[in-house]
């Protein structure tokens, strides 16, 4: 495997009417080619904002921290994403080497342009294909994602397709430029489980075939268990745990991950009580001091939790968590 992307100390704040809020706080991770990383956490934890940072796609009120470094390793050498300034430079990351799939594909397709025309347009911007070549490839991709009668669908509009078909078309469009990195932001959340299973299957096949890296964002741990190689868990902009999918699900090292799993209804044990995580997610305007999770944590180890931010510590090979429980040094408090 070869390194695809390195994210180091990603910090991102937004200027809002109510003040400056921290959406992502000192997040680091990396991804190899062909690897699938699941990014989980409750809504507002900073998953989407983190993903968009890979392409510097956040809106103008976004302020990146000075330490933030994102390196995309392409064939022609590493690209320092944060240093990209204008649209022309941005083409390196937005020009097909990274593709995005969203929860609601309706938002990704222009309503008045046919699906095929949009695919062709995208290919012509980002590749050297001619128009006929682009059309041929687009139809081939629609076929590849399981859309029946692709030549006919090519001329249809997004609203004419069912939710599942639209998501397939979105995947076809995202993959037609043969991206190195695919970011899938809740791609199956709006779908029925039956259709979700079809889309997940399709994505697995395509990863194997195309060998790209995937960042798979979801709040559904079952989906993660079925798709990801490794998992990163976020809470209030912080990366709280990271590890292989087996370690994180079977031996969660962070109280928040344990809380998520205890709250989750599963078919394996339908009599198990559902234990909620107490309290609500704090507003990003009122980020708790010390460990951001201390206002809801049920395993608080002392005054230290509200005073000092825990370090991200290795708990096992390739398994790390940010919690004082794992810090034998005892800290300052």
């Amino acid at each position: 495997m070869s390194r695809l992307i390195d994210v180091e100390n990603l910090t991102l704040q937004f200027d809002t009417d109510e003040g400056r809020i921290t959406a992502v706080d000192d997040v680091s991770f990396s991804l190899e080619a062909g690897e699938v990383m699941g990014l989980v956490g409750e809504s507002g934890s900073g998953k989407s904002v983190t993903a968009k940072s890979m392409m510097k796609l956040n809106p103008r009120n976004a302020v990146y921290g000075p330490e933030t470094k994102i390196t995309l390793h392409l064939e022609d050498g590493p690209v320092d994403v944060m240093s990209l300034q204008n649209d022309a430079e941005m083409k390196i990351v937005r020009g097909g080497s990274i593709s995005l799939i969203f929860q609601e594909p309706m938002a990704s397709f222009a309503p008045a342009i046919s699906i095929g025309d949009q695919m062709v347009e995208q290919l012509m911007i980002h590749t050297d294909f001619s128009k006929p070549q682009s059309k041929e490839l687009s139809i081939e991709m629609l076929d590849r994602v399981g859309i029946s009668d692709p030549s006919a669908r090519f001329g249809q509009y997004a609203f004419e397709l069912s939710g599942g078909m639209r998501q397939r078309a979105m995947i076809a469009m995202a993959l037609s430029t043969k991206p190195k990195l695919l970011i899938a932001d809740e791609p199956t959340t709006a779908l029925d489980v039956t259709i979700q299973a079809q889309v997940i299957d399709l994505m697995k096949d395509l990863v194997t075939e195309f060998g790209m890296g995937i960042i798979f964002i979801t709040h559904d741990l079952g989906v993660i268990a079925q798709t990801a190689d490794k998992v990163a868990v976020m809470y209030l902009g912080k990366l709280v745990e990271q590890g292989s999918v087996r370690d994180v699900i079977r031996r969660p090292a962070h109280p928040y991950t344990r809380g998520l799993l205890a709250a989750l209804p599963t078919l394996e044990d339908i009599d198990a009580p559902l234990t909620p995580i107490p309290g609500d997610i704090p507003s990003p305007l009122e980020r708790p001091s010390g460990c951001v999770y201390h206002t809801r944590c049920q395993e608080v180890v002392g005054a230290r939790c509200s005073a000092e931010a825990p370090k991200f510590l290795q708990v096992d090979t390739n398994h790390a968590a940010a919690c004082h429980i794992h810090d034998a040094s005892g800290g300052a408090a």
Partner: protein
Amino acid sequence: MSQPTLISAQGLSVHYALRGGLIGPKPYVGAVENVDIEIASGSFFGLVGESGSGKTTLGRAMLRAAPISKGDVHFDDGEVSYSLKGLRKQDLKDYRKRAQLIFQDPYAALSPRMTVRDIIAEPLEVMGLTSSRAETDERVREIAAKCRLNVEHLRRFPHAFSGGQRQRISIARALVSGPKFIVADESVAALDVSIQADVLNLLKAIQEDMGLTFLFISHDLSVVAHVCDHVAVMYLGRIVETAPTRALFSNPRHPYTTALLSAIPSLDPDDRGKVQKLEGEIPSPTNPPPGCTFQTRCPYAIDLCRIQEPSLENAGTEHRVACHRWQEIGDQAT
């Protein structure tokens, strides 16, 4: 079953007329088709199925909020007893008090300028159930407390609340008129798991505390497995299987139920690829397939399935299934 039936549907159909069709029969959407269902008093009854299967419409018909085209719904809470189809105006008013819907999101459904207190109080005022403001306030406070909303919350506007709190506001509003029957339509669908668990626990506690009967509509079978005592599975407007929860999940009889269960992603990373995938999508209810409506996607379909629609048969204690081949398929699987 020891508990009496609170609400039941007999041959209930809800049809929505479509435009066109000047010649020949008028085209329509068969959102609910010939549904028989019985909900016992005190039950937490789950209704599942893919989107478009008719869950919302069935729930609304049982609240007399969707037109009853054929069949009827019967309600009997020991105090009153009536059939919903021919309900007189006075009785309908009374029914509104006894049967309530929990909105998915009060913020989306109601005026953003209403305070939480006003949102919860509105049904009381509209139905004229209280005689003074003081009485209304008293009732609102009492219900709000049950839903863990305090006096401070009541003064605020719903946009200031998190998803979980908004859902508690919706629940309080549905409960304020003192109903016996509650339809909860995707009440936890938009919530994060940790909040979802909290709202589910609250619903169960309230149900037990107040002796309510719930029709709990959800597309999430794991949630239904945890909170419901009975479950009905819908497909294209029909009930294809209904059973006590444990029987349905441990011994599903209808191929559609089996497929739905198998599509739920397992939490076990070593369980990958074991899903028995259901191909295709739910057909349009405007033009349902002949015979068994599931035949276009069913791996067990035979010629008979394309000609004759199966009816619900007994497959165990309170367990009913609509499939020509349930017995054979069950024998194959075991």
